[in-house]
């Protein structure tokens, strides 16, 4: 199975782009890459094409999507509003899976607090979210529950090794991109390549 001829699968990453989430953002990139998957995100969208169209194209290319709905609280910046992007993109994924397109698509919801999803998005009642407790170890644990790769299943320790590699190289990548934040197209792509190279080395 490890020598599958199928091209590497892509994972649509639907996460909040805020400072508090930076560690988990790197964790998602490390964890997804550890399974030999390619992370994709709306951060890549830089062209002038309508954003929604690009999101749909991106989603169509991805076999899996991961949605983190742990940022449901109000924004601190006025006017105070919750972020609707993540639930909206989750809705698009569900529609994508339910036969609006012919490609196979599987989606997974992540949360930091147990039972909160039942209150914030009751339409998903019956769907078990993966609770990462807002920690890197929790996230890796849940990713191991979500994905199974026969023959090359990464351990949480190996995922942590990839994560450490990303953390170590983040200042260099940010400096080269002239960016302060990892939520940047170039930084995201660079981090994904580094994570993939580390995964290939660390996960035998």
């Amino acid at each position, binding site marked *: 199975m490890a020598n599958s001829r199928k091209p590497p699968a892509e994972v649509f990453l639907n996460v909040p782009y805020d400072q508090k989430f930076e560690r988990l953002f790197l964790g998602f990139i490390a964890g997804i890459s550890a399974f030999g998957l390619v992370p994709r995100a709306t951060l890549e969208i830089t062209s002038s094409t309508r954003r929604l169209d690009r999101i749909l194209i991106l989603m169509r290319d991805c076999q899996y999507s991961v949605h983190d709905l742990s940022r449901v609280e109000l924004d601190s910046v006025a006017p105070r509003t919750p972020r609707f992007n993540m639930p909206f993109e989750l809705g698009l994924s569900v529609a994508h899976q339910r036969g609006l397109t012919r490609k196979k698509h599987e989606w997974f919801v992540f949360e930091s607090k147990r039972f909160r999803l039942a209150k914030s998005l009751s339409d998903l009642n019956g769907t078990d979210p993966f609770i990462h407790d807002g920690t890197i170890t929790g996230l890796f644990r849940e990713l191991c529950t979500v994905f*199974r790769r026969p023959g090359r299943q990464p351990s949480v320790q190996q995922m942590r090794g990839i994560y450490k590699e990303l953390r170590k190289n983040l200042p260099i990548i940010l400096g080269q991109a002239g960016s302060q934040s990892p939520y940047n197209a170039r930084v995201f792509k660079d981090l994904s390549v*580094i994570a*993939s190279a580390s995964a290939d080395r660390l996960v035998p």
Partner: protein
Amino acid sequence: MGARIDARFATAKETASVLGVPSSRMKKLVGLTGSTLRKAASGRWHAFKTQEANGSRNKTNGVPVNVYFKKSDSKNGTTPKKRSSTKKSVSRKRRARGKLAKATR
């Protein structure tokens, strides 16, 4: 509940190609991941067994003769120098035997 992945494990090259990262940039990024190991390996002395050394294996009663030289020497075409004996002193017994031989001459 979970997803079974039956696709190929993505290499850095494949990830870069999917994300549209140029190959030159990809090579630099891959270099960052194992940069400490690479630095440690470069500039070290390497032991190579030359044809001459291999040939002399039988002459030296099965004791292999390792010839040490810098990696760059092989490019220059210079012959590697054999390491001279590091033995500095002679045993007392041997010195006494030498003195005796001198006296009887």
